[in-house]
């Protein structure tokens, strides 16, 4: 995964045999102790909990796979899986293509001062607290009132106002559209800068050579730029999968399950089982859902790394 670092240390190991310096552990200790308590213990405990009927008290019974069996036979869980698959695929596409496009635009802008000014300006919206953006989308842009921006816009074409996130037309499409449209033009974040850095790291000689071979414009983007950006793409794919599979802020604050469970995602399903109501502290069951999310995340991450590595070798 981190080949350059590995190579450096390997070379060092071969050339000179230094002695181990155990004081390193003093440097590492604060971080490691904190991680042991708050990062390693909870997932292990969650794994144990997932096989129990714990409701938070001191006693619980081991019930083996009962939680898992119940989850897999719950229709709502599967609807959540369907929804998260849709959102995840869309999130990975929109969340990478838009920043890549912006990075290419800024990279190809010949007036450096202008490019730098744009770079600065595009960061400003990302500094607005995320919850404000969510509120704006929820109440002002895609708000259910006839005066919301989207409803005013479609009103110009004579369409009836829609409830968007809360649309009860018994198909998930409008709810899905609303959730997927949220965040348009999908540049919220600093990923465009990271792609831009990748583009700037392409050796001048490669671009020159490509130009001599008549490879310019879009041809260059696909044949030169994208292969050089694989490291960044991989980073965002992996982070996107991890974040996309577990996020449920929108569901928790606004949509809830949505009409006909069109907005439910597994993370929110889990949260509801654990903290959803006074009589629902099903910690064992919720942990089992968490384990399933974890296993899916892990498999997708491994597939991601294998797939992109293969392309790199070719």
């Amino acid at each position, binding site marked *: 995964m981190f080949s350059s670092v590995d190579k450096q240390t390997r070379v060092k190991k071969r050339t000179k045999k230094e002695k181990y*310096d155990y004081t390193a552990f003093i440097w590492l200790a604060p971080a490691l102790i904190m991680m042991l308590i708050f990062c390693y213990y909870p997932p292990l405990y969650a794994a144990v909990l997932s096989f129990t009927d714990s409701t938070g008290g001191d006693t619980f019974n081991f019930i083996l796979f009962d939680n898992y069996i119940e989850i897999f036979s719950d229709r709502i869980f599967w609807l959540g899986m369907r929804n998260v698959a849709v959102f995840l695929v869309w999130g990975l596409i929109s969340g990478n293509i838009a920043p890549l496009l912006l990075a290419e635009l800024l990279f190809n802008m010949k007036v450096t001062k202008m490019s730098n000014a744009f770079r600065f300006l595009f960061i400003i919206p990302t*500094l607005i607290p995320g919850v404000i953006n969510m*509120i704006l989308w929820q109440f*002002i842009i895609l708000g259910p009132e006839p005066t919301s921006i989207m409803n005013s816009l479609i009103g110009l074409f004579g369409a009836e106002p829609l409830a968007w996130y809360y649309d009860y037309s018994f198909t998930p499409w409008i709810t899905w559209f609303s959730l997927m449209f949220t965040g348009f033009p999908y540049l919220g974040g*600093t990923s465009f800068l990271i792609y831009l850095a990748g583009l700037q790291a392409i050796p001048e000689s490669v671009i020159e050579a490509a130009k001599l071979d008549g490879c310019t414009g879009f041809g260059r983007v696909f044949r030169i730029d994208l292969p050089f950006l694989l490291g960044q793409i991989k980073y965002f794919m992996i982070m996107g999968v991890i974040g996309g599979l577990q996020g449920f802020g929108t569901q928790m604050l606004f949509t809830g399950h949505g009409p006909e469970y069109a907005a439910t995602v597994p993370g929110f399903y889990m949260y509801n089982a654990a*903290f959803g109501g006074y009589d629902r502290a099903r910690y064992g069951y*919720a942990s089992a859902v968490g384990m399933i999310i974890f296993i899916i995340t892990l498999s997708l991450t491994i597939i991601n790394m294998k797939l992109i590595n293969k392309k790199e070798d070719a």
Partner: protein
Amino acid sequence: MENAIQVGEVDEQQIVTKPKRVRKRSPKTVAAQCIIILLTVVLLVLQFIPIYITLIKSFKDLNQDFLNPYDLTFPFEWSNYAFAWDMVKSLFLNTFILAFANVFGTLALSSLGAFAFVRFRFPFKETIFTAILAIMMIPGTLTMVAQFMLVDTLSLLHTRWAVILPTIAGNSSFNIFLLRTFFGGVPGEVLEASEIDGASKFRQFWNFMLPLSLPIIFTAGLMLFMQSWNDLIWPMLVLKEEQYTIATGLLPFTTEYYRMTGSYSVPMAGYVLTSIPLLVIFFFTSKQFISGLTSGAFKM
């Protein structure tokens, strides 16, 4: 496009020998550049729409908001801001406490840890590093229930420590990775020279490694600050209402105010106020922040 690269990056020698060609841009290049700039501006406008709405609405009184929701209206209703400030000032303080603890705690733990990986030889080095990275793969939702029971057992529930400690621990993983990549790129000669001069490891770290790594420290710091500013689900779960942060407290305030008045203008003024700190910090650190983000440390 072909000429674009040539024209933009001609070296001085060429300028001397062929001064006329440099100034002259082919119509194709100019057109391409115009399209690029136009597209960028369109994206920028779209990206700024939420900010525009927030600013416009924050200056409206109830009537103006009702009659004219998306245009500039006069006179400006400045009292919105006074009212909003009363509502958000406690959120501010709460968020600042958590954000500072997160930034300084995480940076302290991760920079010490990352330094160990770059400047020490110790057993199981790569194994430990992989184990630290593995944390990033564990979804927060998996551990949420167990984490909740843990802070309950440690009697941290409904205290700020319930947010601070798990956040610092969870962030250390990614930040050790990030700082190790950056520290690894700092030329070792400087540190080795100071070591020969008798500088202790800690002095090498404090006097040389940290100052040389300021861009990535600023980047990581601002990202952590933003994270505290935006963190939603966990704080909502473990904090008391009077400890609510901006992310957790703005929505109740917004819906409450809308229910009473049918307008969003005062909440919008609150959003403007809560956006200011991050903007101010960014204006002062933007150079470091951008150079850290573009340093190439973010990839796998």
